[in-house]
C-alpha cells in the first residue's frame, strides 16, 4: 500500500506536467500553423532571419 501511495501521486504528477506542457504550447501559438511547420523546416535559411535585422 505504501508503494501505491507514492506511485499514484508520481503518475498523476507526470501526467499533469505533460498536460500543462501541452496547454502552454497551445497558448503560445505552436498549434496555429500545423502545415507550415512541416514545410518550413525544409527551407529555413540562416542568412535572412528577420530578428537579426531588428
Amino acid at each position, binding site marked *: 500500500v505504501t508503494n501505491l501511495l507514492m506511485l499514484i501521486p508520481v503518475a*498523476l504528477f507526470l501526467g499533469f506536467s*505533460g498536460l500543462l506542457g501541452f*496547454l502552454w504550447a497551445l497558448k503560445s501559438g505552436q498549434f*496555429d*500553423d500545423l502545415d*507550415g511547420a512541416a*514545410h518550413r523546416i525544409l527551407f529555413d*535559411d540562416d542568412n*535572412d532571419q*528577420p530578428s537579426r535585422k531588428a
Partner: protein
Amino acid sequence: VSEACLHCGGAVPAGLGGGFCCRGCEGAYGLVNTLGLEQYYRRRTVDPAARPLRPDEEAGRFHDYSAHVQPAENGEACLHLMIEGMHCGACIWLIESLLNKQAGVTWARVNMTTRRLVVRWRDGENDPGTILAPVLAVGYRLVPYDPQRLGQETQRQEKELLRAMAVAGFAASNVMLLSVSVWAGHFSYMGPATRDLMHWISALVVLPAVAWCIRPFARSAITALRAGRTNMDVPITIGVTLASAMSLYETMHGGEYAYFDSAITLLFFLLIGRYLDSRARGRARTAVEHLLALDATAVTVVEPDGGQRLLPPHKVAAGALVLVAAGERIGVDGVVAEGSSDVDTGLITGESVPATVAPGAKVFAGTINLSAPLRLVVAAVGERTLLAEIVRMMEVAEQGRARYVALADRVARYYAPVVHVAALSTFLAWTLFTETPWQVALLYAVAVLIITCPCALALAVPVVQVIGSGRLMRQGILIKSATALERFADVDTVVFDKTGTLTLGRPRLVEGGWQEDDLRLAASLALSSRHPLARALAQADPAAPVAEGVAEVPGRGLEAAGMRLGSRAFVGVEDEFEAVGPELWLSRPGRAPVRFAFTDEVRPDAAPVVAALQARGLSVELLSGDRQPTVRQVAGDLGISVWRAACTPQAKCRRLAELAAEGRRVLMVGDGLNDAPALAAAHVSMSPSTAVDVSQTTADVVFQGHRLGPVLETLDVARTSRLLVKQNFALALGYNVFTVPLAVIGLVTPLIAAIAMSTSSLVVIGNALRLSRGRKP
C-alpha cells in the same frame, strides 16, 4: 503545347520564344533571380489545384494597402493579408525572403494552414505598396483583412475544444490506470479501503475535468432546450453529469462501482469527434473567407478643394464625387458625371460582355470599370447599394434553409426521450416491484443512461463527414457547412448558372470569318486595351507586335493610323442581324471590315457531367442572366432542355421557390453576385472558386479548377456518406438493443460499460473509414 513557362509552369504559346508565357512571368523570373532567390524554382512543387503563379499586370491597383495598416508596438506598422496562389513550402520561403529583403521590414510570417501573412515594419521607413510590390510582381495575390473581424470566433472555439480534449485525454488515461486496477481487484482480492482510495483519487481527477470539458456540450444542450428542441448534446450532458454525480455518491458511501472512467472517456471520444469536425470545416472556411475583399476596396473621393482622399466605402456620403480608375472595382452606386468607359457588370447581371457607360449612366457597386477613368456622383453607399440589397435578399432566403435539421438531430429528437423514459422506468420498476433499496435502483438507471449515452451515435455523423470532406478536399472541393453533405444527398434537381459556371466566364475567339493577317493586325491593336474581348484577341495571337500610336476611344474601340477595332457602330458597319455572341470588328482603309466573333468557352467536361447527372435521374436546368441566343446555344450544346435567359436575381429566386413548392430538392450551382440569392435559397448550393466573394460565402460547397466534375464527385460522396451514416446509426442502435436489456436488469458493471462503449465507437469509426478508401474518381 511544347514548353512550360519557366516561372508559372503554364504552357508557352507557340511561336513565343524565351521560355515564358507572358511578360509578367519574364519580369517575375528576373526579379527572383536578381534577389538571389532562384533556388525557389528547384525547391517548389506546383500544386495543380492552386491558382497558377501568373503575375497580374494591374496587381496592386485594386487595393490600397495603406488604408489597412495597423499600428503595432515599438513604433512599428503591421499589415494582415490573405494570400492567394500559394503552392507549397517553397512559396512560404519565397514570400518571406522577398519581404525580409525590403527596407524596414522586421517581421514577415506566412501561416500555411490559414494562408495568411503578417508583415511588420518600422513605420516611416517604408510604405506598404513598396514592401508588397515584389510579392505581387511574382504573381501572388494579396487581400488585406481585419484580424479583429475574421475567424476569431471559430479559432477561439477550436482552441477551447483542443484544450478540453487535452484535459479530457489526461484525465481519461490516468483514471483508466486506476480503474484497471479496480477491475482487476474484482477478480483477485482488493480491500475495500484500497478500492475507496482509488475511487477517491479518480473523483479528484475526473470531477474537475468533467466540469470543465462538458461546457461545449452543456452550452449547446441548454440552447436547444431553451428553444424547445432536443439534440444529441442533451442526453450526453445528462448522462455524463448523472454518471459523475452518482459515482461521487457511491464513492462517499464506500460503494463497489464508480463510473468515473466511463464518464471521462465518453467525453474524450466526443471531443475528438467534435474537434475533427470543426477543424475540417474551419479549413474550408478560411479558404473562402475572401468576402472582406469587397469591403476592403478603398474609394477615391475628390474633395471640393480638388484634393483626393482614400476612404472605405461606408464612410463615403451620398452626393460626393468619386474617382474610379481604369481597372478598378467600383465601390459605390452612382451616376457617371464625367468620362465614358466600359463597365464589367458580370457581378450583377451575369452578362459576359461589358456594358458601355457615358455621363448620366447609372453604375453599381461591385462592377469593374474597364477602359477609362470615371468620375461618379455617389447615389448610394453601403447598406443602400444594389449590392447590399442583393446581400439582404440572400439573407432572407437563407433563413428558410436554417430550418433544415441535421439527420443526427432528427434521430436525437426521438432517441433522447426514449432513453430518458427507459432510464426512469428502470428506476421506478426496481424500486416499486422489488425490495431493492433506491440507491441501487438509481445505480441501474444510471447504467442504462451510460450504456445508451449516444457515444457511437454522436460519432456516427461527424466521423463520416470528416472523412468525406477530407476526401473531397484532396480534390479541391471544400465543404463549408455542417449539413451540406446530408443535403447534397437529397438532391433531385440541379440548376446551373451559365456564365462562369457552365462556361469558364472568359471570351475566346471563334475560328472563321477572318484571315491570319487580319488577326495579326487586330491583335497588335488589341494589346493596348484591357477590354476582355481585346485581351482574348491578343491571346489568340501571342506573337503579335505592339502597334504604335493606338488611341482608345472608351466604350467604343481602338484607333490607330486610320484603322479601327471595336464595336459595329464604331467601324461603321450597317448590318442589322443580331449577333449571337460578343464580337469585334476591324476596319482598314480600302478594305471590307472583318468580324471577329467570340464565344464564352464551355468548361471542358460540362457536357459529360450534365449527361451523367441526367443519367442519375436528376433533372437539369439552366438559369442565366445572359441574352437569349447565347443561352439557347449553350443549353443546346449541353443537352439541357429546360432553360431561361435574361433572369434577374429575383427571377432566379422565384424559379427556385417554384421548384421548392413542387417538392423538389434543388442543387444550385452558380458563381455571380446575381446568383447569390438563388444560392442561398436553394436546398444546397455550390460555387466555383473563381466566383465572387459573396457567392463563395453563401455556397455550401466551393470547388477549384476548370472542370465541372466536382459536382458529380460531391454528389457521389454525399450519397455514399448518407449510406454510411445510416449504417452507423443502425450499428449504434443495434448495439443498444443488445446492451440496454442487460443494463435494465442490472447486470452492467463499469467494466462492461467501458468495453461496450469503446467497441461500439470503434466499429462506427471503422465503418466510416471505408469512405476514404473509396474508388478513385
